[in-house]
């Protein structure tokens, strides 16, 4: 034998792997969010960037502090904490004090992720846990919307952002209302064009329907999410709001307004599709999406709050283990699924 045998590895098959990895998928998501970040800056000034930095800092610092040493590098590397902070930031009102945003980021990771055992184990969407915590904690600050400005105000930062920790913010501008608030409390509709462009009051990232859809399209083409979930949400929200609209057009907004106002698009594309907290099976995804659409229409039209997307998604997150359990795919060659 002229050559020595190589040291052979004994690793069980399959040897081959599909190229895609989890950090790739995460990177896709934040890439698709970049236009929204730019739009938020355009509409609400560079304060938007400060706010996003605050949530991201809150998220990453919490993650760093509460993750035991050997896993720290991994949890930063998988980018999910960054993404949670970014997503949370995009759902906040533009004038929210930075300390609240930071606290929200910390709550999102602390309550939404760390206590569950980290990425993949959490059962509620961390960003939405953070937002629900903020909305419950600071209901006034979380529902005070500053009006969308223009490029002229790009470098004006709202004073309320710099409220000292634990202190109430003082708002310098007259607050505006979101299209949903206008609809619910003053029966004023907002034109579809404005909803698509996004120069309305609302959370940083949710106002521009067009850009949200664009990001969704990108993720769809990259196959980064289960298209069934947004599809089911849109279909059921459109259907139920359409039915209500037929009953009383004056009182209930039509499907288009329902779809393009508030955070429905943003929630459906970026929050509901979080794979960790949504059902695994296709049938489960449909049920999950339909449930969200139904709850959104229910809360918006019959509830006390103008917006219900966050709560709808959290509630369906809670139901996800049950959905998963009862929508196990039918095993090949068997009459029914397991479970």
């Amino acid at each position, binding site marked *: 034998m002229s050559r020595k045998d190589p040291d052979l590895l004994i690793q069980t098959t399959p040897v081959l792997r599909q190229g895609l990895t989890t950090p790739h998928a995460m990177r896709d998501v934040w890439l698709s969010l970049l236009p929204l970040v730019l739009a938020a800056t355009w509409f609400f000034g560079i304060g938007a960037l400060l706010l996003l930095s605050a949530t991201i800092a809150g998220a990453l610092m919490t993650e760093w502090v509460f993750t035991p040493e050997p896993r720290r590098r991994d949890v930063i590397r998988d980018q999910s904490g960054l993404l949670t902070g970014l997503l949370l930031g995009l759902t906040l009102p533009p004038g929210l004090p930075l300390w609240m945003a930071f606290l929200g980021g910390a709550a999102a990771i602390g309550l939404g992720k760390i206590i569950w055992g980290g990425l993949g184990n959490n059962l509620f969407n961390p960003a939405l846990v953070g937002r629900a915590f903020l909305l419950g904690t600071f209901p006034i600050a979380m529902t005070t919307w500053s009006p969308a400005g223009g490029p002229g105000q790009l470098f004006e930062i709202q004073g309320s952002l710099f409220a000292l920790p634990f202190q109430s913010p003082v708002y310098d501008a007259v607050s505006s209302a979101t299209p949903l608030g206008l609809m619910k409390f003053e029966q004023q509709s907002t034109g579809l064009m404005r909803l698509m462009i996004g120069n309305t009051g609302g959370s940083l990232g949710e106002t521009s329907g067009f850009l949200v859809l664009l990001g969704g399209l990108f993720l769809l083409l990259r196959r980064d999410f289960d298209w069934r979930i947004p599809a089911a949400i849109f279909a059921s929200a459109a259907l139920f709001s359409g039915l209500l609209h037929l009953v009383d057009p004056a009182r209930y907004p039509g499907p288009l307004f329902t779809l393009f106002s508030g955070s429905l698009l943003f929630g459906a594309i970026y929050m509901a599709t979080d794979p960790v907290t949504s059902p695994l099976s296709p049938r489960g995804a449909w049920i999950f999406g339909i449930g969200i659409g139904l709850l959104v229409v229910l809360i918006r039209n*019959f*509830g006390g709050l103008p917006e219900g997307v966050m709560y709808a998604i959290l*509630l369906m997150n*809670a139901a996800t283990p049950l959905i998963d359990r009862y929508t196990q795919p039918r095993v090949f060659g068997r009459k029914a699924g397991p479970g």
Partner: protein
Amino acid sequence: MNELVWIFVSALLINNFVLAYFLGLCPFLGVSGRLETSFRLGLATTFVLIVTALCAWFLNTYILIHAPYLRLICFIVVIASTVQFIEMAIKKLSPALFKALGIFLPLITTNCAILGLAIFATNRGYNLVEGLIFALGAGAGFTLAMVLMAGLREETELSDVPALMQGTALNLIIAGILSMAFMGFAGLFSST
């Protein structure tokens, strides 16, 4: 009619017995480990709640109106004996149902949701129909919370929950997040 819908929805979602009134926490934290068990306990509790609502109305209308100070002692004695009686009756009439619910019935006696329902229904002056709807909503709300909780807890068994979090600490925080999610129902059907 509208009033009844609100009573039901309020007890089911807005003021869920477990998640907003903190009633029935012992079984909620103790028995919600398995989905099957939780669902059955929920059903059994709903049944007892409805019977309790009936008894409470009867007591209120015919006895306590003359002796309001006996309210608590009457309720507790009546609930305990009703549960006993139901247990015996089910055992005799439907052994299958007894097998399904039987072991939970004694647990229900010490469930403060039952006494809470009777007291709330009295304080609010519900009539018979309202009381029954209230009981139905409360029972359904209890079952809903139990089942959701059980589903989530079964899932956490497969997770790497940090050792410090395991057990009641995690369950309480799950309940907190659930309770936060249920805040979304605030104001439901009240703004007509």
